[in-house]
């Protein structure tokens, strides 16, 4: 897996809501890219982010920090960051950091979409 060649895929739901397919890894190698992608979305009016972790095998502290950064950006705008289809390795990090207290989790992207819209 070469993370440096990976891009995050962004799928618009509405003007204010997008799904971000996190892909295989969100870590120190691509966290800056993730932040840039999210900042561009916020600048264009997006407030709600559904993070799809279906294929994610790595979420490290830097990756988690970039999600916290996104949350700090959209919270004052009454936006949301939610987790969908959380893979087992990501769930281990969520449990370790008690991040479920901050980010609502949904079993599927569709369930997250219904809850957010």
């Amino acid at each position, binding site marked *: *897996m*070469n*993370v440096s060649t990976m891009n995050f895929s962004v799928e618009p739901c509405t003007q204010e809501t997008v799904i971000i397919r996190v892909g295989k890894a969100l*870590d*120190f*190698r691509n966290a800056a890219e993730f932040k840039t992608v999210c900042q561009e979305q916020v600048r264009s009016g997006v407030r709600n982010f559904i993070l799809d972790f279906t294929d994610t*095998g*790595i979420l*490290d*502290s*830097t990756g*988690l*920090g*970039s999600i*916290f*950064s996104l*949350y*700090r950006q959209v919270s004052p705008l009454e936006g949301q960051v939610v987790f969908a289809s959380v893979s*087992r*390795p990501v769930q*281990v*990090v969520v*449990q*370790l*950091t*008690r*991040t479920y*207290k*901050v980010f609502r989790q949904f079993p599927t992207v569709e369930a997250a979409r219904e809850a957010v819209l």
Partner: protein
Amino acid sequence: MDIVHHRFRDLNTIIDHVHGLFDRWNAENRFPPAFPENARYLLRQVVHEWIANLVQHADFHDREPEIHIDIQPNGRNVHCVIEDNSDGFDLNTNLRIREAMLEKLPERGMGLLMMERCTEDLVYYRAHNGHFRLEFSVSADKDPWMDIPF
């Protein structure tokens, strides 16, 4: 699973190689059943965080980086040694600084604390050969958690 030893020299590819090893060990059922999946993910997380720390912050001067990883399963525990030829640093002091400075919803500074919470007997010291050694154990009997300010 017997003790495994791997040596790495390329900081650009080491993370991918390490995860590739873990994927292979899992596919081949190399970890003992007494060391379950969650514990394996925690071990992998700790190794990842440390390698990420070395890749981003370690000072090797003009030396070619050399990183050795030894993993030794023992029932419900796995002992791990990661040796490097960097200049090293004072892990304990850094841990306490990061703990004291951890802000609400922190963007940085969680990696070493994450490692500390997931492990037992975590030490980083200069070995007889002049290299620095990180040693720790991960136990299947531990349910670690981090106190991050939200």
